[in-house]
């Protein structure tokens, strides 16, 4: 795992938390509609349901765990990454969060590690160093059985 010697900054602000404690998993930044209760990722200002369209929404943190809906393994290096782990390719998955949203993000692991329906947990993954800081993206890793 990465040494938390450098400060970590998200590849893009406003999508996930970067906890001070490197052992703590990140959470996804989403929105809850206060009128109908629907949850969204990423954040939005107006509920998307045609029947609702309420502007009364609240920022929430979601995850860090979810269920794998589908997955693939991409046989190309991860764009913009200098991390050797990403040179031979990387997993991508759609993950259903318990709050409702389905998110589409990189996965940690190899093709054979993934199966539909398994539980995953969000983690931060370093793409490259940038001016003394680690640029990080959020991804999901399968949770080992019984944990």
């Amino acid at each position: 795992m990465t040494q938390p010697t450098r400060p970590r900054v998200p590849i893009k602000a406003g999508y996930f938390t970067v906890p001070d404690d490197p052992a703590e998993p990140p959470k996804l930044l989403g929105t809850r509609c206060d009128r109908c209760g629907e949850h969204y990722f990423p954040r939005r200002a107006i509920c998307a349901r045609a029947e609702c369209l309420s502007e009364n929404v609240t920022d929430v943190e979601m995850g860090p765990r979810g269920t794998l809906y589908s997955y693939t393994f991409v046989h190309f290096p991860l764009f913009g990454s200098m991390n050797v782990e990403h040179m031979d390719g990387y997993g991508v998955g759609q993950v259903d969060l318990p709050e409702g949203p389905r998110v589409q993000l990189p996965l940690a692991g190899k093709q054979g590690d993934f199966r539909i329906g398994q539980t995953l947990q969000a983690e931060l993954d370093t793409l490259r160093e940038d001016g003394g800081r680690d640029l990080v993206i959020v991804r999901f890793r399968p949770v080992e059985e019984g944990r």
Partner: protein
Amino acid sequence: MKDVAVLGVGMYRFGMWADVSNATMAREAGMAALRDAGLSFRDVQAAYVGHIFAPVMAGVRVMKEFGLTGIPVQHVENASATGSAAFREACLAVAAGHYDVVMVLGFDKMTAMIQQSTQGTAPENMEDAILPAAFFALWATRRMHERGMKAEHLARIAAKNFNNGALNPMSQRQADKPVTAEKVLGARMVAWPLTTMMSCPIGDGAACAIVGRADLAKKLRPDRPVVKVVASTLQSERYARGHLFMGPVVGPAPMTVDSSRAVYEESGLGPKDLDLVQVHDAFAIEELEYYELLGLCKAGEAEACIERGEFERGGRVAVSTDGGLIARGHPGGPTGLAQIWETTLQLRGEAGKRQVEGARIGLCHMMGGGSVCVIHILQRD
């Protein structure tokens, strides 16, 4: 859609044409369409132009190739469905009585875009991690889980499209011998289970359709059947639980279902009436899903239909007769117009070696990322 016809079609073959400009490709496609219609650019009263990768103003500037006649020129963009969306705007304008003759022109140069992107810009977006191939591979994995689909089914679709493309002189990929499913499966893996041969290539090209009043079609070319545009729809997504807001999103499934219902209702036709269908087969898994979403077969039956060859030329309903995006190519702006080109030739009986015998009715389906679905039904009068 009442009394709108395709008066003429033209293409500049899709391919890797690094040394050919957008202006040249677009002019040649446009002049071919005008000759096909029996018209001169003097007769064109308006133009709708589509491109994705060329800079702002490119459409208006390229239109100068035909002469500066002062006609309204309007850019239309809707990602992969750009050409289809431009075609729809032209048909609506003719149907509304604004114009008698309208040019629809699509062009793009993906080779130029790739030269730019290799000069190196760091991604600043979470979504850059999700390639289109990965997005559609996620459809494939899910389909395997739910319906027992095998990679072989995707390979059979791709092989069919390669073999159709080999009969189309405008197709980008021209296999010199019949392509087998085994060859498709053995190609380089892009995103499991999708191989390069189950994926559309990058490319350059142009395509043009001249649309106009249906009564003009018979006057201009009394020697051949009139091809009418009998239905058109463009829909964006309705929210449902599980909606994906990030990444190269195309779908969700209900959008194609709703769009196809709209064109079937408008035309009074149904999927059983179709002789040929063109779909947005950027990846083979898409074509498989669209069989069901367009009603060509029942949900869950696509795999069995593929095994029976029902969507091959000579099968129950021929799909991607010109090679589809996988073989004919998918430069972007012109892609939807290539579908109109193919369907028009087929309905006239001018499709040569790949002619679908007695074809009367054809459907053209495109998806634009974001996303939108555009469908047209063309019918021989």
